[in-house]
C-alpha cells in the first residue's frame, strides 16, 4: 500500500467576481511508497502547495482523490491526518503560548497525552531546549521554523510533509533539520519535500516529481533523471559579456557561466568561440549536469496545455 496516493487530482479555483477559472492542478496521479524520501519540484505557481494543501485537508480537490496509507483524506480524514505531519510553508505561530505549551497542545489535538519525553527529544534534536519556556513571539524566524517542524512531528506521524521548510533559513538550521529528517527517514518514515533548493532535493530525495502548470511533467528516480540528461556542463567564471552565439544556450549566475556540452568536440567549440571573442574564462571545469540543469531543461520545454 502506498504511503501517499494521488489519484487524478484536479483543482480549479473560481474567482468571486468574474467567471474566471484558474486550473491549479490537472489530473495529477502518483504514488509515494512507504520509506521514500520524495521530492516535489516546480516553479512558483506550479501547484505544489495546492497539492499538499489537498493532502493535508486545507483544500478540497475539484476531482480525484488522495489516500494516506489507504485512508481517503476526505471520507476518512481522521485516520489520514493521524498519519500525516505537515510543516507549512508560512512562518505561522500562536503568540499566546510558549514553545512547550504549543507542542503539548498540538500533541493533545491528536489524542497523544503524556508525551513529555518525545517533546523533550524533539526540542533537543531541533536545538530548542533552551527556548522551551520562551513565548513564541520572542523567537527568531529560524527558531520559529524549528518549532513548526517540532509541531508537525509531535504526534510521531509515519508520513512527514515539508513544504519549503528551508526557505529563508540559515545554514545551521538547514543542516540540523536535514540531519534529523534524514534520520527519521532511515527509521522508516516517508518524507515528501517541496523545495526551491534543488541541491537539497538532489542530495536527499530518492525519487522526484516535477510539476509544471499543474501537471506532472517528470516522475522518476533522482539518479534516472540525472542520467537522462546525458550531458556534461562546462563551467567557468567570467566578467566580460558572453558572445551572442553562446548567450542563448548559457545559464549565467553572477560571474558563473554554465554551458551544456555533450562531448569533447562541443567543449572545444565553446572554448574556440570564447577565444575568438577575446574572452578569458577563469576556474574552468567540466562536470556532470546536476538537478538544476535537468529542472531547467524540463521547465523550459514545451508549454503544457491546461
Amino acid at each position: 500500500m502506498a504511503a501517499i496516493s494521488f489519484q487524478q487530482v484536479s483543482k480549479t479555483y473560481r474567482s468571486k467576481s468574474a467567471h474566471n477559472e484558474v486550473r491549479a492542478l490537472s489530473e495529477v496521479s502518483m504514488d509515494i511508497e512507504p520509506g521514500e524520501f520524495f521530492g516535489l519540484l516546480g516553479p512558483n505557481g506550479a501547484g505544489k502547495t495546492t497539492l499538499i494543501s489537498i493532502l493535508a485537508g486545507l483544500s478540497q480537490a475539484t476531482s480525484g482523490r488522495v489516500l494516506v496509507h489507504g485512508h481517503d483524506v476526505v471520507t476518512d480524514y481522521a485516520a489520514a491526518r493521524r498519519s500525516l505531519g505537515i510543516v507549512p510553508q508560512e512562518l505561522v505561530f500562536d503568540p499566546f503560548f510558549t514553545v512547550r505549551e504549543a507542542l503539548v497542545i498540538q500533541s493533545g489535538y491528536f489524542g497523544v497525552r503524556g508525551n513529555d519525553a518525545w517533546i523533550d527529544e524533539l526540542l533537543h534534536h531541533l536545538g530548542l531546549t533552551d527556548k522551551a519556556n520562551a513565548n513564541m513571539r520572542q523567537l527568531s524566524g529560524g527558531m520559529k521554523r524549528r518549532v513548526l517542524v517540532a509541531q508537525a512531528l509531535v504526534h510521531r506521524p509515519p508520513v512527514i510533509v515539508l513544504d519549503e521548510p528551508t526557505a529563508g533559513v540559515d545554514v545551521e538550521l538547514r543542516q540540523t533539520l536535514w540531519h534529523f529528517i534524514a534520520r527519521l527517514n532511515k527509521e522508516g518514515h516517508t518524507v515528501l519535500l517541496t523545495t526551491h533548493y534543488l541541491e537539497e532535493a538532489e542530495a536527499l530525495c530518492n525519487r522526484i516529481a516535477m510539476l509544471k502548470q499543474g501537471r506532472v511533467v517528470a516522475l522518476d528516480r533522482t539518479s534516472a533523471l540525472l542520467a537522462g540528461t546525458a550531458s556534461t556542463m562546462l563551467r567557468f567564471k567570467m566578467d566580460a559579456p558572453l558572445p551572442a552565439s553562446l548567450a542563448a544556450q548559457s545559464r549565467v549566475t553572477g560571474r558563473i557561466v554554465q554551458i551544456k556540452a555533450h562531448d569533447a568536440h562541443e567543449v572545444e567549440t565553446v572554448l574556440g568561440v570564447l577565444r575568438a571573442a577575446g574572452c578569458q574564462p577563469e576556474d574552468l571545469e567540466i562536470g556532470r549536469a546536476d538537478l538544476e540543469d535537468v529542472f531547467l531543461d524540463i521547465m523550459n520545454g514545451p508549454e503544457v496545455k491546461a
Partner: protein
Amino acid sequence: MSAPEHVTPGLLSGTRTLLYKEVLRFWKVSFQTVAAPVLTAVLYLLIFGHALEDHVKVYGTVSYTAFLIPGLVMMSVLQNAFANSSSSLIQSKITGNLVFLLVTPLSHWAWFLAYVGAAIVRGLAVGLGVLLVTLWFAPLTVAQPLWILVFAIAGAALMGALGLVAGLWAEKFDQIAAFQNFIVMPMTFLSGVFYSVHSLPPLWLKVSHLNPFFYMIDGFRHGFFGVSDVSPWTSLAVVGGSLAVVCGLCLHLLRIGYKIRH
C-alpha cells in the same frame, strides 16, 4: 521514532485539549478579557444607577440599581461569550495559525464543543466578576437560582456559537467589529438591560419582543426577582429555539469548512 504510547483517539481527548487551549488563551490576557469588561459594567452601574435610582422603581418594589445588576451581569456574559469565540477564530484565521488545527483529526463537533465551551467559561467568569463587584452597590435576592444558571449557560452558548459563525464568515477584523457594534451591541442595549420593556410605548414593546436578547435577559432576571416581563418558560422556549438554530448553522458551516478549507 516508534508509535506514541498514550494515544486516546476520538472526540474527547482532542476536544478537551482545544477547550483547554481556548480557555488558556483568554486567561493569559485576563486583564483585558475579564477585568476590563467587569470595570465597564461597574461604570454603567455607577452612572445609570446614580442618574436613575431616585426616579425609577421596577416591578413595584425593586430599586433601579438592584434591577440593573442582573441585566448588566447578563449583558457581560453575552458580549464576552461572543467576543471569545469570534476573536479567537478570526485571529487564528488572519495570522494563519489556524493551520495547526486544520491539519488535526478533530471533527466539526470537536471544534464546536471546544470553542463554545470556552466562550461559556469566559462569559460566566466575567458575569461572576460583575456580580461580585456590583453586589456591593445594592442587596440582591436570588429567588430561583436554577433559572439564573439555565439562562446564563444557554445565553453564553448561543452567543459563543454566534461568535463562531461570525468568526467563520469574517475575513477581516473590522467585519467582526461591525458584527459586534451593529448587531450584538444594539440588540443587547435594546433588550431591557437598562429598563423594563413595559415602560416602553406599545410599538417598541412589540419590537422588543422580537429581540431574542430580551428573553435571555428577562429570563435571567426572573431568577433573581421571581418576576419578569414575560414568563420564564416563554423565554426558555425562545432562547432554546434560537440556540438550536444558531448551533445548527454553526455546525453546518464547520462541517463544510466554510471559508477555512478552500
